[in-house]
Every structure is written in structure tokens, then in C-alpha cells.
């Protein structure tokens, strides 16, 4: 399946391919992003990394680090 992923900290959009039945945790592993450091939104809704994803889902990864 193909996903659109927006990585807020780097302000970049990525297209990612993952096998059917993957979870957001699999996506984070593929992107080498630590789940502790991001809040995930799937199609506009905040979700935990254990959520399953499907083809054409829109994912946003919001960094929790702000500093100051």
C-alpha cells in the first residue's frame, strides 16, 4: 500500500510503501522515527502507533520537541 506522510519537524512530505496490514509503528520503524518523539495523526485524527493503516491514508507526524 502507498501512503502520504507529512513529517512536520523536517517540513517535508514523503510517499511510503508498506505491506498490507502494517501498523503506524511499522511506518515509524521504516522512517527511523522514535514513537516517543511524535504525535501521529491519521486522516486528521490523533491515533496511537498501534493503529493499523490502509492504502491512501494521510499521515502527519508532529514532533513533540519544542525547546524554550
Amino acid at each position, binding site marked *: 500500500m502507498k501512503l502520504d506522510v507529512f513529517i512536520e519537524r523536517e517540513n517535508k512530505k514523503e510517499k511510503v510503501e508498506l505491506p498490507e496490514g502494517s501498523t503506524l509503528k511499522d511506518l515509524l520503524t521504516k522512517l527511523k522515527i522514535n514513537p516517543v518523539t511524535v*504525535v501521529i495523526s491519521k486522516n486528521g485524527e490523533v491515533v496511537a502507533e498501534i493503529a493499523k493503516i490502509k492504502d491512501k491514508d494521510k499521515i502527519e507526524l508532529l*514532533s513533540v*520537541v519544542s*525547546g*524554550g
Partner: protein
Amino acid sequence: MCKTCKENPVIIIQGNKPLCKGCFMKYFEKKVFWTIRQYNLIDKKDIIAVGVSGGKDSLTLLYLLNKVLTPQKTKFFGLLIDEGIKGYRNITIEDAKKFCKENGIELKIISYKKEFGNTLDEMLKQKKINACALCGVLRRYLINKYARKYGATKIATGHNLDDEAQSILMNQLKGNMAFSAKLGPKTGVLTHDQFIPRIKPLYFLTEKETTTFSKLKNLPVTFIECPNHKDSFRDEVGKMLSNLEAKYPGTKQSVVNSLLQVLPSLAKQFKGQKIGTCKKCKEPAAKDLCKVCELLKR
């Protein structure tokens, strides 16, 4: 599924527990109110200066303090320090103003430019100095000075579990145990009649939890990072702790718990440290001059 009501989870909280939106919001607020009660952070007669940056932590704190302090008629106001960091603070100030206006909260803004003659950006062009080290000293100085000037009896800050675990580890790695004696949910060992005690109601909540709360509450937060934070020592330590947290859940809480266990003896050990008054600006100082007058050579 949510551990409590079987709805779809929005987060996996400390202790590896998935929670849905409703249960997470209840958990978050309960933990903040528990911290306030458990550590006697606020007395009804207090006047609270809430340190506001306009970021997720401080607006979450302001939202919750408004919820708890307004019904019990405890006075509070927002205190924002404008360091003059272009592309960052000018944006978060607007968020803070918007939030305070919408919620009828008084917001006082103090700027480096007006107080010290230069913005942080200008100071960093003139001096070869670590941005966070300089900025931290100047900010703490102004928060204390103006909280006192406006009659506050306590200063509430949005420090969370991640901030505290990082500070503990940074002090350990640099051998600054006296600094760790000043940590904890409320002010540590140093006393001076010019010092306003500090409290940290978000002390037991992680950065991920405060971010999730602010997002779910639709607080007007622009999620941007301070440009000086990247590659700082704090940033390095923060990354290390988050990597350990992912591998061994509960690491950050354990670091903080370990400090809380030894805090009474640390406080006892460093209690003798005398705090005087700065010869130039009359603010509290460990030496003849306070750190601000020393750094700015004024």
C-alpha cells in the same frame, strides 16, 4: 483498544497503557490536579505568575490553571518573556495573546530588548556564547524580577517529565549536583526574600502527553521548535533519554523518581549555600554580581 473503555486509543501512556481521547483527557487532568494537591503547590490566597511562552506546555498549563484557579478565586496572570528570537518567539507570542484574549487572562510581556538593550539574536551576534546557557539565565532573572514586581507569590512553569529528566541527567553528567538540589515539583533549597518560589504542575506528564493534550484540546499552538535548541546539550540528552524510553518504557519516570528519593538529603547538603544580593542590580546573586550582570558586563 483503550485499556479502560475499549474505544480506539489516541496514545500509549506511561506504563504501556493505550487510552482513548476521553480517558486520556481525564487521566491528564487528574494527574495535574493530583500533583498540585500532593505537593501543596498552590494555596487559595496565592497570586500565581504563569510563565507563558505560547508553546504547548505553557498553554496547556494556563488552560488547566484557569480551570482550577478561577472557580476558587485564586488570582493568576500570564508572564511572557520575549527574548527576540526571529521566526520563533514572534510566532508563539501571537498564540499566547490569542489564547489569553479568548479566555480573559491578563498577559504581561517583558522583552530582552527593553530590559537589556538587545534581543537574544543581537546578543548572539556580538558574543560567542552558548545560546541556551545565556537565554536560560536571562529568562529566569526576568521571570523572577517581574513576577515579584507584579505581586506574585508563586511562579508556575510548564516544565514536564522530559524537561526534568533531562535536567537531572545533564547535572549528573556535568557533576552539578547542587543544581539538582534545586529541582523537584516546587522550588528546592535556595531561599532569599527576593526569590519567588516556583512550581511545576505538569511535572509527572511526558512531553508526548502534553503535546497530545494540547492537540486534542485544539489549543492555539504553532508547533515550532526554538532554532537554538537543535544540537544543544539538552537536545542531545533528550534524544538519548527518548531512545532509552522507546526501548525500556518508564526510563524517564525512573530518572525523576530517583531524584525525588534523594532530594531531601540533597536539599539538606546544599542548604548552607548563601545567596546574597547583586551589587549592581540588587537582584539575588551567589557572588558579588548576579549571573546576568556578569554575563552582560553591565
